[in-house]
């Protein structure tokens, strides 16, 4: 049995499997790593590509910069070189890799030079490595080149060695995730030789810098770093292999590193140092930023730096935590203990010793003091970085506040003068203390400190013997002074802290309230549309921004809702699509396509991206603060959940309506096939009898004239019935599909009834029809043909369901703004529970058993009446029989 200690951690194995899976669908990345320009990376890469091509692999050159070197250019021969994307930026035409072109061409292997390149601003991604990642994600293998100094974590080491700051960097994870790394090595002497021979490409404007850079010492150091880095990689791979294969070995002690970030420029350096330490120890690492009340007043420049640093840390693979608390050291140590952190990295303070002492010791001192077993590493700053941005708070405390505290102390002094003599001087100190507390609470820290000092002076001057002099006779008073000053300082410090905390709480609370309000409104929203409207409105109000929501439809994104009058162009839509497909934010303030005015955020739920939220700042010069971003993220999460919920509900509804449509269709088929077949049978029967008789007539002539006539009448009657049925079906279809436009015109109701009765003469010939309508009926706007159809259907039903020869009554009455029609028969009426159902499509009343019909007539009536804005219902008459009533509202004629 193996020692459990050696067992691979299941979580780790899972991560490994997932990484493996990801790698299989992803393209493979091979990096040709060099330590300086001119070592021959591109050359080596192209040679390798040639080799692949000769193995029959589909290789294209997506982007290669030959810098005019003949032997490199020669190597391009035989390759398919994809055209580059030309783009003009600030009047200069520049070439970039055509990412979409490569994606479209979809080769097996794409060769992309210079991984660390920064794209021109109108490109989809700001960096080429992001392009490469997209290629990999699309399953395309990539060969690429990079120099060691472009590696994020090497950035400041390189600067220290060479004095050159490299601006184009790539995240370390690219290196970690690369499937293969090939170090292109060249002894430094040879490289320098090549440089002298002009074989190394040097941009004209950089000749000087390059000379400085290509010193032997520099190159040797860089070479060493790159070799070491590659060796680390190999080491990683070996360890990873050993882990999966459960080979016991020298496991790392399980270090965990915590990097404490603050707002000053040292942050970036700290993060890089953390990453290196984590790499060296093969340890997990996290970066924490503790937001204190004071940060609320931070200049936006500092806030943005923090955001940048946190992003950087994430890029380098750190777990990032943002906590808030007034006591930085305490908060950090709590986090560290919870996470079994073994090493803490902090930056060396930039403030003077005095300043720190006044504030009760630096955070570092506090951390070191309370860290216990945890090692604390202090990273020092570099001289040139000593550009501390002055804390904005000092400037913000207005001089009025100082004036006010001076006045306050004066007032206290004046008030205390008359009571002097009646009270012990030491008790008068209380008045001054009160002044200090008030200053601290209302005016802030600075004014309250001033108040403490002034109080001491005033007390000494006015109330301590000898009065009106600074001198003190009784040395006991020195103690009083010190006490007053100390109490004043402490109170001012804690009171202003309290104030800050209240401020912060208030800010937090308003954020929480906003989130709460949104979630309440979203809960109340019943369908997708109202959810979207709520999101648009609340976001628009909260962030003072134009907001748009795009939802997927098929493979496309559709603008579903937006701030009134706001829409996006095709370009922005493309960014939104990218954000949707990649599940990552894009646009302004992100790494992808940041040159636009809009920011697109994927609305993510556990099931994936349900849509895209786009915000456009109305004031283009303002970026979102850290707090606002967090709030926006919260909003986006909430919205995503609500949208998902609403679309599920909608889908369920659709499924339900589909099911009911299916039910309807089968009802229709049942009903129709029966109803069509009956008349057709009698028509065919009659006609074939006649046909047969005609053929045999000469010999027999069996049918009498009367029989023949009967057959013919039956056939033509059935044909008419069939025609009515088809007509009904047609009407129903048109009503349902909304094709029926009301052809409303002023109609004389008497005339309408007359016309209907005229049309139905044949059906009604044996009936007594009673029409009652007042003579003074006004003319009413309606579609006479459709309302006529309603009456026809009702009369037809009345004939069907009442005894032959019985009377049918039609009456029209005027009820204020309604015209009410009713058709009464003397049949059996209907069961109470069927009263509303008979107006449903294909519903056939139980009494309809023997009578023919499709159950459409009344449904058509309802459709027509409702199209007129009226209603229709049925009642049983007391004396027996059914009364169907419908109303048509009388609207003012338009003409």
């Amino acid at each position, binding site marked *: 049995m193996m020692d459990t200690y050696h067992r691979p951690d299941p979580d780790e194995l899972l991560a490994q499997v997932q990484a493996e899976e990801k790698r299989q669908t992803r393209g493979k990345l091979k990096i040709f790593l060099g330590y300086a320009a001119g070592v021959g990376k591109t050359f080596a890469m192209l040679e390798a590509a040639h080799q692949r091509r000769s193995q029959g692999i589909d290789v294209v050159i997506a982007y290669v910069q030959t810098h005019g070197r003949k032997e490199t250019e020669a190597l391009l021969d035989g390759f398919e070189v994809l055209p580059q994307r030309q783009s003009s930026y600030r009047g200069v035409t520049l070439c970039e890799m055509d990412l979409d072109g490569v994606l479209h061409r979809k080769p097996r292997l794409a060769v992309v030079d210079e991984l660390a390149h920064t794209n021109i601003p109108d490109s989809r991604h700001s960096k080429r490595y992001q392009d490469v990642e997209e290629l990999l994600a699309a399953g395309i293998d990539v060969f690429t080149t990079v120099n060691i100094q472009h590696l994020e974590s090497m950035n400041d080491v390189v600067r220290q060695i060479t004095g050159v700051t490299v601006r184009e960097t790539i995240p370390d994870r690219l290196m970690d995730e690369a499937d293969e790394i090939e170090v292109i090595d060249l002894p430094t002497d040879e490289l320098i030789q090549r440089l002298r021979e002009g074989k190394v490409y040097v941009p004209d404007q950089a000749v000087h810098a390059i000379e400085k850079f290509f010193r032997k010492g520099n190159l040797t150091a860089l070479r060493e770093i790159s070799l070491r880095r590659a060796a680390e990689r190999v080491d990683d791979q070996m360890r990873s292999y050993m882990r999966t294969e459960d080979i016991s070995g020298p496991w790392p002690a399980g270090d965990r590193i915590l990097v404490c970030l603050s707002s000053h420029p040292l942050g970036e350096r700290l993060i890089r140092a953390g990453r290196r330490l984590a790499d060296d120890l093969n340890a997990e690492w996290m970066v924490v930023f503790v937001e204190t009340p004071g940060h609320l007043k931070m200049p936006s420049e500092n806030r943005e730096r923090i955001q940048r640093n946190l992003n950087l840390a994430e890029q380098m693979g750190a777990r990032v935590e943002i906590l808030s608390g007034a006591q930085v050291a305490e908060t950090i140590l709590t986090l560290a203990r919870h996470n079994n952190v073994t090493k803490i990295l902090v930056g060396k303070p930039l403030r003077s010793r005095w300043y720190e002492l006044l504030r009760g010791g630096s955070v570092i001192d506090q951390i070191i003091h309370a860290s216990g077993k945890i090692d604390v590493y202090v990273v020092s700053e570099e001289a040139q970085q000593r550009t501390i941005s002055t804390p904005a708070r000092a400037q913000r405390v207005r001089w009025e506040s100082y004036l006010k505290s001076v006045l306050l102390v004066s007032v206290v002094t004046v008030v205390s003068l008359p009571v002097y003599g009646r009270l012990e001087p030491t008790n008068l100190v209380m008045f001054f203390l009160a002044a200090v507390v008030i200053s601290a609470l209302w005016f802030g820290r600075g004014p309250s400190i001033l108040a403490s000092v002034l109080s001491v002076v005033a007390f000494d001057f006015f109330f301590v013997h000898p009065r009106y002099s600074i001198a003190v006779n009784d040395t006991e008073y020195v103690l009083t002074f010190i006490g007053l000053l100390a109490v004043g300082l402490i109170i001012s410090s804690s009171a202003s802290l309290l104030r800050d905390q209240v401020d912060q709480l208030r800010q937090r609370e308003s954020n929480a309230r906003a989130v709460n309000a949104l979630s309440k409104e979203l809960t109340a929203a019943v369908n997708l549309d109202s959810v979207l409207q709520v999101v648009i409105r609340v976001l628009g109000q909260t962030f003072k921004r134009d907001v748009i929501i795009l939802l997927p439809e098929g493979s496309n994104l559709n603008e579903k809702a937006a701030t009134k009058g706001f829409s996006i162009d095709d370009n922005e839509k493309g960014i939104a699509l990218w954000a949707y497909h990649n599940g990552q934010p894009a646009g302004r303030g992100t790494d992808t396509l940041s040159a636009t005015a809009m920011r697109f955020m994927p609305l993510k739920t556990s099931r994936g991206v349900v849509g895209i939220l786009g915000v456009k700042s109305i004031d283009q010069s303002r970026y979102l603060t850290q707090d606002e971003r967090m709030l926006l993220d919260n909003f986006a999460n909430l919205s995503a959940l609500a949208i998902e919920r609403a679309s599920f509900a909608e889908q369920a509804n659709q499924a339900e309506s589909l099911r009911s449509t299916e039910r309807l269709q089968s009802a229709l088929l049942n009903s129709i096939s029966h109803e069509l077949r009956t008349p057709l049978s009698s028509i065919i029967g009659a006609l074939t009898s006649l046909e047969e008789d005609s053929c045999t007539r000469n010999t027999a002539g069996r049918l009498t004239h009367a029989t023949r006539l009967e057959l013919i009448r039956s056939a033509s009657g059935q044909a008419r019935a069939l*025609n009515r049925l088809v007509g009904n079906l047609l009407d129903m279809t048109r009503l349902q599909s909304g094709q029926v436009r009301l*052809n409303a015109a002023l*109609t004389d109701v*008497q*005339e309408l009834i007359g*016309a209907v*009765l005229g*049309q139905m003469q044949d059906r009604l010939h044996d009936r007594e029809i009673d029409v009652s309508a007042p003579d003074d009926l006004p*003319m009413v706007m309606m579609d*006479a043909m459709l309302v006529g159809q309603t009456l026809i259907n009702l009369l037809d039903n009345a004939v069907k369901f009442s005894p032959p020869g019985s009377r049918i009554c039609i009456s029209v009455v005027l009820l204020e703004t309604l015209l009410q029609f009713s058709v009464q028969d003397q049949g059996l009426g209907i069961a109470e529970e069927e009263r509303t159902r008979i107006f449903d499509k294909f519903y056939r009343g139980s009494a309809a058993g023997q009578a023919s019909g499709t159950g459409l007539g009344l449904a058509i009536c309802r459709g027509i009446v409702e199209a007129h804005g009226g209603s229709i219902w049925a009642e049983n008459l007391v004396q027996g029989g059914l009364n169907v009533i419908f109303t048509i509202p009388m609207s003012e004629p338009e003409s």
Partner: protein
Amino acid sequence: MADQLRVLVVDDEVEIRRFLRVSLTAHGHMVFETNSGQEALRMVVDHRPDLMILDLGLPDMDGVRVTRRIREWSKIPVIILSVRSQEQDKILALDAGADDYLTKPFGVGELLARMRVVMRRVITMEGDPVYRAGDLQVDLSRRLVTVGQREVSLTPTEFDLIKVLAQHAGRVVTHRQLIQQVWGNSYEDADRLLRVNITNLRKKIEANPSKPVHLMTELGVGYRLEGDDQG
């Protein structure tokens, strides 16, 4: 009416043409057929038919256009065949000068009656100024309307209305045609006036205005003064 008519049948459905050919030939008429509007226009010139039966839905040009083109140079009576969903086209065709319509499906009896009515127009155009149907008599030259023995007193507008209807007796006259001929082209509120006058007219000439026997309504299309269909 002439016993033998030369009838041009324009319909793209073979079965309808066959049915019309058989029935009309049986009644002694001579039938020409075509399935296209263009061809129909040519055949009106070539064969000089007395009457045209025109389906609204033709493959090459619709019946409304055929009617318009024909009316540019010919007064040949035209009977429109329509189906239920072509209400609007039907009215357009009537306004364009078609003489009457039949909605498919229809019986031969109905068709023959319509044919008689439209042919009579051609005959009475110049002739008899007196219209008779049942107990209703309209004497156009004397501006006299009687029901049975009773003389009916009409307003000038009512008389103009019944005059137009009587001149087209047995045939449908669309709302627009009536308005145009009685009130002229641009008369505001003519629609309402038309309905009011028709209602009043009915009260004067019908025994039961709810069940008219003379002045019939064609819902959504227009009015028809029942002809004295004795042939």
